[in-house]
């Protein structure tokens, strides 16, 4: 009976959350709690895997609004996201078995961690608007509590505040979207919404609201501002969950509303989604390239990957609006595969950042360096994650981007001119984002793990514990497996795709040699397994041949460095100097980057200085004015707080009269 297990798992998570409150003082609390969440997550993953191809499972609980009850339903889409959520949860729990020991106040983390997992599971299972929003808010609040769990740092409190504001705004938009969907009859159950077909303008409004509501949680630009503040503020295993998993729950929300509840799309919907996705992908990775805080860099890279996923979703919408079901299936498969892939490598990278943080106490990459010598296991898995997120074959990131490119190549068949012009441009943006991601992660890995240590903390780092390494190693292995056997995952996505766009990619596992063939073999095919085997064989051939036939002698000496080796580690390239060429090319417009160099004149013994100023234009030109005007209005409204009773009464009277007037004119 797998379906009911999903619900039991939510109950078990909640139970663990309560238990964690009781246990918080105990020294073994974190081991017990994370062990329990690991167990529950593993059970939930297997239940979700079974449910993926099964017929939907429904249930109504006598909770929630009295005349509706809480509807729960696990269809293939929910099952896929349940698998993603709980796989991420399992990895995070395994990692936290070790990493959680570093927590000073586990009581602030443990209960919310379990509650957060429960919330995410519940969102994916909800089958009516009320339950969905309740679970959504529960998830937001639990993650907010985790963001502010290290409350001593003022930056975390600010991050928590901005997160709370943005999350409320997002939920408000979703509330309105569901309100419009449910209509005046209040049919909040998803089944009722699915049956009613909203008018065109209503559907458009719902699309925009859903895009804002889910996009703000997923980190779509320009609603991403909270994400690079809040995700890094939480403990690292939670950062991984927020970036790798919670953004995926937001994407689930978008899929559920736009692909499932809203019915047939208009073609211009996809234009909005594609443009937002493309801009988000490129700007996200450019911002990531400018960061010095390792975890913030990863958070911006999440923004980029969400952009890539939305490009896939936009393509799927465009194809579906033109009844090109096979092409829509390809684009949606690419997007969903990237959902899984990004969960895998982003969790891995955040865990790696957490390991670095635990070993050195540092998040600033300018202070790190040379960790490959001190932390070999962590550096290896971080390298796998970096290569995977940079879309390098034969790892998994490449497969989903390759599928997205293949979907782009199908788009000239689309008749609308707007799409014909936008899709190639978005394709170029996607290619640019992928290439910049490579730079970004060469920089991240190269500055943190390679070179010479830039601080004593980095020089004295110690490898982290076995649980942390196990958590990361499992994810690294999954990155490789998804990369070399993508056909298995694509086939299992089949029922999900079928239910959403009414078509699915051809069965991949029956293709010879386990290749993936999106449409036809003469058109395009890719075989990660063979590429992996070829690289492994030719590497070993080269190593064996050369060591056997030529020389294998090694001498150690000082570095050559063109004859001018400098002993000081400060002469190495830093993270900001690594990014300088890219900053020069893109930065002057995108970030208004300004570099000021002060060189003392000859004979002057004062120190030279270099100042770099990088601005977030979206924050400066969109949010600062909003914050200012809200502040201004609040100041004005403050006047009403200190009135006499006489004035209050006359205000009430005036309000009543004007309302009556409006009513009179209205009717």
């Amino acid at each position, binding site marked *: 009976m797998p379906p009911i297990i999903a619900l039991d798992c939510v109950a078990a998570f909640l139970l663990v959350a309560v238990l964690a409150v009781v246990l918080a003082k105990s020294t073994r609390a974190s081991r017990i709690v994370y062990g329990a969440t690991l167990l529950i997550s593993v059970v939930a993953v297997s239940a979700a895997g079974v449910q993926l191809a099964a017929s939907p499972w429904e249930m109504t609980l006598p909770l929630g609004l009295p005349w509706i009850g809480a509807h729960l339903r696990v269809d293939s889409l929910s099952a896929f996201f349940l698998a993603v959520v709980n796989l991420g949860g399992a990895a995070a729990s395994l990692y936290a078995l070790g990493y959680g020991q570093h927590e000073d106040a586990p009581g602030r983390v443990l209960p919310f961690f379990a509650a957060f997992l429960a919330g995410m599971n519940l969102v994916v299972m909800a089958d009516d608007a009320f339950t969905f929003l309740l679970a959504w808010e529960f998830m937001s609040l639990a993650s907010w509590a985790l963001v502010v769990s290290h409350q001593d740092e003022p930056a975390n409190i600010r991050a928590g505040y901005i997160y709370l504001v943005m999350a409320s705004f997002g939920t408000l938009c979703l509330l309105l979207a569901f309100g419009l969907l449910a209509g005046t009859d209040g049919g909040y159950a998803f089944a009722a919404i699915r049956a009613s077909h909203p008018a065109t303008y209503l559907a458009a409004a719902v699309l925009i609201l859903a895009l804002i509501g889910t996009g703000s949680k997923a980190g779509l630009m320009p609603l991403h501002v909270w994400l690079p503040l809040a995700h890094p503020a939480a403990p690292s295993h939670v950062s991984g969950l927020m970036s790798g998993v919670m953004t995926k729950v937001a994407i689930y929300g978008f899929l559920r509303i736009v692909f499932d509840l809203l019915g047939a799309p208009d073609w211009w919907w996809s234009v909005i989604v594609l443009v937002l996705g493309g801009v988000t992908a490129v700007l996200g990775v450019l911002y990531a390239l400018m960061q010095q805080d390792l975890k913030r860099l990863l958070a911006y890279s999440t923004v980029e990957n969400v952009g890539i996923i939305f490009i896939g979703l936009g393509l799927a919408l465009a194809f579906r609006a033109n009844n090109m079901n096979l092409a829509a299936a390809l684009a949606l498969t690419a997007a969903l595969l990237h959902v899984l892939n990004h969960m895998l490598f982003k969790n891995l990278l955040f865990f790696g950042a957490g390991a670095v943080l635990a070993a050195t106490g540092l998040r600033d990459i300018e202070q790190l*360096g040379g960790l*490959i*010598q001190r932390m070999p296991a962590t550096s290896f898995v971080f390298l796998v994650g970096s290569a995977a997120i940079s*879309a*390098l*074959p034969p790892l998994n990131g*490449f497969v989903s981007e*390759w599928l997205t*490119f*293949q979907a*782009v*190549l199908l788009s*000239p068949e689309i008749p609308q001119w707007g799409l014909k*012009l936008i899709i*190639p*441009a978005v394709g*170029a943006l996607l*290619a*640019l984002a992928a*290439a*910049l991601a*490579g*730079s970004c992660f*060469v920089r991240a890995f*190269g500055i943190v793990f*390679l070179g*010479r240590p830039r601080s004593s903390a980095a020089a004295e780092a110690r490898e982290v514990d076995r649980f942390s390494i196990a958590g990361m190693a499992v994810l690294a292995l999954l990155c490789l497996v998804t990369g070399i056997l993508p056909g298995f995952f694509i086939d299992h996505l089949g029922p999900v795709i079928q239910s959403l766009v009414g078509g699915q990619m051809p069965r991949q596992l029956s293709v010879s*040699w386990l*290749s993936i063939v999106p449409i036809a*073999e*003469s*058109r*395009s*095919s*890719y*075989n990660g397994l*063979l*590429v992996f085997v*070829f*690289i492994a064989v030719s*590497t070993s051939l*080269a190593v064996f041949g050369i060591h056997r036939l030529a*020389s294998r*002698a090694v*001498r150690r*000496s*000082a*570095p*050559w*460095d*063109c004859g001018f080796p*400098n002993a000081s580690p400060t*002469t*190495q*390239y830093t993270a900001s100097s*690594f990014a*300088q*060429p890219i900053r*020069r*090319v893109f930065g002057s417009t995108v970030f208004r980057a300004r570099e000021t160099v002060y060189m003392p004149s000859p004979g002057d013994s004062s120190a030279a200085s270099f100042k770099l100023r990088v601005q977030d234009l979206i924050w400066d030109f969109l949010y600062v004015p909003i914050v200012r005007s809200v502040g201004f209005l609040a100041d004005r409204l403050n006047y009403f707080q200190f009135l006499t009773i006489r004035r209050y009464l006359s205000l009430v009277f005036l309000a009543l009269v004007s309302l009556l007037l409006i009513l009179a004119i209205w009717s």
Partner: protein
Amino acid sequence: MMTDLIVQGSQMAFVLVLAPFLTGLSRKFRARLLSRQGPAVIQPYRDLLRLLRKDVILAHNASWLFRVAPYLIFAATWVASALVPTFATGLLFSWSADLIAIIALLGSARFFLALAGLDIGTSFGGIGSSREMLIASLAEPAMIMIVFSLALIAGSTQLSTMAGFMLSPAIGLRVSLGLALISLIMVAIAENARIPIDNPSTHLELTMVHEAMVLEYSGRHLAMIELAAALKLQLYISLVICLFVPWGIGHADASLISYVIGAAAYVLKLAIAAFLLALFETAIAKMRVFRVPNFLGAALMLSLLGTLFLFVSRSL
């Protein structure tokens, strides 16, 4: 099946053997154009053998990545170039990676090369890696756009199918094809660190990119990297040949004679390409590094324009 395997195997050996020859030939042409005698055409082979026999001198703080990277770079480049048709299309494993995957394989090689540049922690290594990644982040999207143009014309991203289409009468003179060719040559120059982007024959020049990254390498490691660089140059030239001048290339299941003709035609085209490369390199001055983005931006825009044309009309 057996013949296919032999063709695929000989293709792998063929590119490996021929790559240093191409480098030597272009150096020879260049020297002659500059009225110098120049080293023998087989000098790159001698260099490689000499390097292979020498000890590796490693910096004290070199990590395992530094020692593994040359082999990975070589392997990724070799696999990529083994999948680009040279003397025959319809290679046995050509379906295991299409053109996008081949580009991405080269991206993998570059990723590890740039990391190796950062490993020792010298300023030269850093400068090389940083600039290489700048060039890559503009050249790669341009390359993907070129692939888009060609794939939209040929209806496939599979190199064998594309080369077959280019040989068929269905192809004609197209604007997008011309744009793709210009853009592909620009990208190839940038990717292979040739003049005007980078100078392959200098050390200790402030604008050097590729040579700065591999400065710390010696012995067999350096040999692997040099061979990979030669393979990459050959790969790009093969790409231009098989997509734009595929005449004479043998088909799958062809007779031995046609394979021989294909190989002869290929070597001839390679020699012509080496001459043109040398001619171009002697005729032009090296660019400042911060003008490189303009050069590559132009390549990106040309290729994007080509793709847009094809979205507007399939016959452009």
